[in-house]
């Protein structure tokens, strides 16, 4: 595994937020190196800065200090449009609350990152291929017959699978998942997790999971603990000092 090329290298990431008068140091020198095809779980207490870290890794946010290399490109000095292009090409996001666009069908939601990548002219030549690919992804996720449905007509699990297809459609090097199963019941979570690991292997994508779910974290190759603004390696297992998982019954979808 260690021979695989480095997809992401973050060194000394710092991020501060102003909360009223106070300056909150959320990240204080987080280091991370991710290799192609790796699966990594990032855990930590609520408010430890997991989401902030994920946004930094996905170029949605800029660190106050530190360096971030993505696929060999130094990203800190890049302009906003350049970072957006890089994000579109290299990164896929999966969120806890699916975040699908309600006006679009499942298929259109999946196609959106490809549309963003193409101008109108290029889209005309690529449309057919992109559709085939998106339908293939939906098929892989068992949603072939749901392609024309609007998100409101899909279940929570189905929506999250559409979101996963959308994250993978651009063939990203890095798939960043923020509590991907946090809003789903236990059985659906397992199915989604299976598919997520399965697809990341099949599409050779590096998978980063931010989660509270010890079971999910245990399935990753490497588990990191975010504490005091830094990342520390952690032995995956049931004894991880995470917050006691809430009873599943209370985690039903909203």
């Amino acid at each position, binding site marked *: 595994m260690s021979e695989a090329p480095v997809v992401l290298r973050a060194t000394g990431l710092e991020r501060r937020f102003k909360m009223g008068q106070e300056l909150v140091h959320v990240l204080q020198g987080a280091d991370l190196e991710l290799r192609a095809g790796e699966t990594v779980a990032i855990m930590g207490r609520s408010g430890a800065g997991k989401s902030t870290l994920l*946004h930094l890794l*996905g170029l*949605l*946010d800029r660190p106050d200090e530190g360096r971030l290399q993505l696929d060999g490109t130094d990203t800190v000095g890049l302009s*906003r*449009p350049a970072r*957006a*292009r*890089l*994000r*579109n*090409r290299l*990164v896929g*996001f999966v*969120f806890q609350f699916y*975040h699908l*666009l*309600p*006006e*679009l069908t499942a298929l*259109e939601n999946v196609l*959106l*990152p490809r*549309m*963003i*990548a*193409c*101008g*109108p002219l*290029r*889209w005309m030549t690529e449309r057919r291929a992109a559709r085939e690919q998106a339908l293939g992804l939906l098929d892989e996720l068992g949603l072939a017959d749901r392609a024309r449905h609007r998100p409101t007509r899909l279940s929570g699990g189905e929506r999250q699978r559409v979101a996963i297809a*959308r994250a993978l459609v*651009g063939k990203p090097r890095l798939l960043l998942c923020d509590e991907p199963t946090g809003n789903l019941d236990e059985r659906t979570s397992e199915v989604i997790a299976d598919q997520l690991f399965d697809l990341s292997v099949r599409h050779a994508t590096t998978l980063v999971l931010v989660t509270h779910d010890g079971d999910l974290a245990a399935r990753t190759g490497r588990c990191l603990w975010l504490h005091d603004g830094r990342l520390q390696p952690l032995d995956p297992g049931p004894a991880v000092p995470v917050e006691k998982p809430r009873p599943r019954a209370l985690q039903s979808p909203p």
Partner: protein
Amino acid sequence: MYRPFLAGRYLLARPVSYLAIFAIGIGVGALITVVSVMNGFLRETRSIVRGTTADITVLPVQHPSEGLVASQSAYEAVVKGYPGVVGVTSRLVRPAVVKVHGRENLSLNDAMVGQSGHINQVMVMGVDPVAESRFTDFTHYAEQVYDDSLKVKEVQEAAAASPPRAPDPARLFALDRKLIRDRRLANADLPRILVGEQRMLLQQLQPGDALELVTLPDDVDLSGATLASRTETFVVAGAFRTGKYDFDVNHVFVTTPDFKAWSGTRQEFSEMAVTATDPTQLPALRDGLNRTLERAGLPVLVATWEDRYAVYLGAVENERNILAFVLGLFVLLTCTITFSMLTMMVQEKVRDIGILSAMGAPALGIGAIFATCGLFVSALGGLFGFVAGEALARNVDAVKNWIESTFHIEIFNKEVYAFTTLPSEVNSWLDAKVLLVTVAFSVLICLLPAWRAARLDPVDALRHE
């Protein structure tokens, strides 16, 4: 590609966007229709004013005690010789009191006569029908009378001839003696008169009826206890119709010799109607004529037809401009609907903006989605208004007639507007400019919400609930 695609989807999902399209369409359509109709009014007013007024009128200025300083021929020689003048015809004009022969002088409602007169008053125009027809629409006035029974004999005969021929202007005042109603007048060799069709209808006149015209002599002594007046009986030869209601009610035509015999005037002419080679260069011709006549020692007032009716034409033009201004404001107001629609949309779509950022849409691209929404709405609305407005403006008279016959109401009082049909002049290039300005303004004010969308921090947007 995602920009127009998402813009379309966002708009289709929101009923308010249809409302905005509709509102802009109504605004643009109303502006186009009203401006077209007002331009039609202006054109019609100008052509009617034009029809009864020469290109340029030369009014001799009289000396306080000696009267005119020179003869008609002296004036005509100078005017005719001026470059750019096609022809000139002299007229005598004098107000008169009029009474229908053999009837009591009933006073009709003034309102029926128009703003500028009373049924018992007329302007008597003494003209040379041949010269007048050569340089003005005089023959045409006699021809365009609606009621065939009111037309003069020569016009009826010319139309009945096979093939139809043009009426001979020299015979426009002719009348069959047997038509003269009052047999006692039939044998007297009475002068003839042409009366406006509107007055014919108002006073229930037929060719062959007689009118008595009363005027004051040149040397009237207003200090005397009794006024010496001059009266003559004229037989109506037929009607004329200029289309300008006011003119038709308040003017009558007689021949110059009859005019002189009736009024006993020493004056040779009251005004000179000048026809120009180039009707677009009238102000220059007016100034040139003025200078030349002054230099020749002939004091005059020279006015183009537009000068003489400047107030009248200016009023219609002002009316058009004010309506265009008000409706223009209305269109801009409808554009602000797009603005508020987009402002709400951006607020509603904060999370979408975060998602799109996460998928790699650049900030400007996200702003462009909303600007495109504004462009779609204003372009569709403007286009709808453009098409509807042009269609309505081109068929406004049919629509007016339909409304009038269906609901039994009169929308436009033809006595006030002097037109029997609702005119409209469609200027598609102007309308296209209205469309362009509307779209440009709409997109411009939509840039503000679009800019706000573009500036949203994606991380904040994603956290937004």
